[in-house]
């Protein structure tokens, strides 16, 4: 009995003690991959450095499950104190009122200012002049390459980087050369909606055609058909796999069976970790070549939102803690850059350490050429747009339907969803 009593006392003191000394910050994110491991390390470091604040982190399933969860939890007062968000998914989230706007004064209280971020990202998270979500990074797509294979066919220049890949014709010729000389698969891309979208949308924007979704019109014209046709031609010629699930598309590259691979910068940790254990060839990552008129690459941004609980607004003390967390994450985002991402916070980007960080430095240009998703409630990660790519464009790529017919279905489906 006495033991139990003592135990109860200890527990009570522990609970009381911690609630007095510490502010708990409930944190929800969707970072489950290699970058999630790095984010957990950052949270641990933050907690160690801040005895007065304790981040209680939960990682939820990326995509629709995550966004459904925040959308249902916040209005009934069961949401977190900080949530990660994709700027591309905000056009659906902001009108539902789940974001608490963050004022300049509040930012200034922890030493932040909207001038500290890439202007394009600030635009992406600003709605009606109100700053809704503090950007953490810009993440984009890059071209991963096997330097040994490219070198063996003379596609590596004097600077040690791939050369001769600019222009649709040149790129296709390079793929043919790789196939003829080495016999490996030249190009690996996952045929899931997200990956195909990012590639196709990048090449779409390289033709400077204007927004893909304009109000309730989907511009599925020749500028969109061109990159889809290009992929279909590569598949038909055997230069790209007919179908590859996401993990298989990476495995094709990391096992040396494919010479090049397009994927997000978030797979940099996969390559870094494999290389560190000696299981990977000499690899590199560069920004997408310019296939058409000008450089452009799809990009998105992870940001930190403060949920808006109308019935029980966040307390001043909690808000201070939340802002402290957000500021710290930004100022320490060099660790996040190790996950391949480009920090959105300019002082970190301008720091010497970041300027020398590889492979980020090689594709640093992405921050300037980033093209964000169309601003629409049907666009953004895990949106109907991604599903429609999966549904119509990816199979068209495999030659199951002529590209123009698939695009027509794609356009009709999306326009019916406004």
């Amino acid at each position, binding site marked *: 009995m006495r033991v139990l009593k003592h135990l109860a006392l200890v527990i009570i003191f522990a609970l009381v003690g911690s609630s007095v000394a510490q502010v708990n910050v409930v944190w929800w994110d969707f970072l489950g991959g290699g970058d999630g491991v790095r984010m957990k390390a950052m949270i641990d470091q933050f907690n160690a450095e801040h005895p007065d604040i304790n981040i209680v982190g939960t990682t939820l399933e990326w995509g629709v499950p995550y966004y459904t969860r925040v959308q249902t939890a916040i209005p009934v007062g069961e949401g977190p104190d900080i949530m990660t968000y994709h700027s591309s998914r905000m056009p659906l989230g902001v009108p539902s009122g789940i974001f608490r706007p963050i004022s300049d004064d509040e930012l200034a209280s922890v030493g932040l200012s909207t001038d500290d971020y890439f202007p394009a990202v600030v635009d992406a998270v600003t709605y009606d002049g109100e700053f809704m979500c503090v950007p953490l990074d810009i993440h984009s797509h890059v071209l991963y390459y096997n330097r040994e294979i490219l070198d063996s066919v003379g596609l590596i220049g004097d600077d040690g980087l791939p050369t001769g890949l600019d222009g649709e014709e040149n790129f296709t010729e390079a793929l043919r050369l790789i196939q003829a000389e080495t016999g490996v698969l030249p190009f690996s891309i996952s045929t899931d909606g997200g990956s195909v979208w990012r590639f196709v949308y990048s090449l779409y924007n390289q033709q400077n055609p204007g927004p893909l979704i304009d109000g309730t019109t989907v511009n599925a014209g020749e500028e969109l058909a061109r990159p889809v046709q290009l992929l279909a031609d590569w598949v038909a010629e055997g230069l790209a796999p007919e179908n590859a699930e996401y993990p*298989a598309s990476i495995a094709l590259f990391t096992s040396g069976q494919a010479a090049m691979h397009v994927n997000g910068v978030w797979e940099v940790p996969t390559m870094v970790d494999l290389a560190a254990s000696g299981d990977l060839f000499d690899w590199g990552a560069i920004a997408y070549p310019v296939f058409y008129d000008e450089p452009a690459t799809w990009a998105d941004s992870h940001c930190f939102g403060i949920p808006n609980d109308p019935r029980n607004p966040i307390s001043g003390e909690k808000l201070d803690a939340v802002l402290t967390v957000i500021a710290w994450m930004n100022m320490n985002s060099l660790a996040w850059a190790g996950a391949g991402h480009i920090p959105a916070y300019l002082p970190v980007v301008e720091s010497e350490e970041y300027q020398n960080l590889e492979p980020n430095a090689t594709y640093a240009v992405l921050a300037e050429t980033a093209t964000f998703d169309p601003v629409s409630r049907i666009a953004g990660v895990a949106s109907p747009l991604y599903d429609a790519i999966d549904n119509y464009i990816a199979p068209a790529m495999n030659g199951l339907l002529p590209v123009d017919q698939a695009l027509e279905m794609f356009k009709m489906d999306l326009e019916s969803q406004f």
Partner: protein
Amino acid sequence: MWRDALLLVAPFTILYIIFFLYPTARVFELSFTNAPLIGEGSYVGLANYERLMNDPLFMRSVRNTMYFVLLSVIPNTAVGLILALMVVRLKRLRPPVLAAFFLPFMLPVSVVTLIWLWMVDSNYGILQYILTYFNNGRPLAVFRNPDWAMPMVALVTVWWTVGFNMLLFLAGLQGISKEYYEAASLDGATRTQVFRFITWPLLWPITALVLTLQLIAQLKIFDQVYLLTGGGPFNSTIVMLQYVYREAFQQFRGGYASAISVSLFLMIFVLSIVQFLVLRGNRRRA
């Protein structure tokens, strides 16, 4: 006496009302509003239902659901029956064989779909040794091919759930008195005759039960489609519940999603009654 009875059924009744009747009533109510996912909407009358009638994707999802039912209900029942007829003849080998057929049913759907996605992976899948034969020697991405996708989803479903039907049939077979079979063998009946005139009619109540359970279960198809194809390619596998999921949880249109749910509810209701009447008629004739 009455009070005691009420007291005893109260826990169930209360839970049933809170967690079943109330949500069901709310779905009907929401289907007449333009409610978002959370919160109240305003009353819009039959607007959601009018929109349904002119929504090609909804019609497509109804057709696909029926196609899936066609592909899964009868094969699932027939294979279950055939397996049971084979297993019932075994003696010492029965438990391990039974376990082997029943094992898939114990797996969660996510595991089942992962196993199949690996087996048919177009770059590394072991089944490609067979599938390439159907595609002129090239790998066949079954879940990305509009002709193959739905039949494959049905095949995975049968593989996954047939063990349970087999078990029901096995119980039914063991319930048939041995005397019928003895009498039949004395009369010199062939195995086909024994099956046709003894096993089949006496097993009919079980068959009818399996068919009814199957119909209801397969109309509610969602998990396998969500995990294997996402509804594509070219909408060839989008089913009703998945359309509900998309509208409600991706686009936050609670009212419209409720209207689709109500349509599915009515469909299951009507089809179950029709099937019940048909199967009951069959039994009388038998």
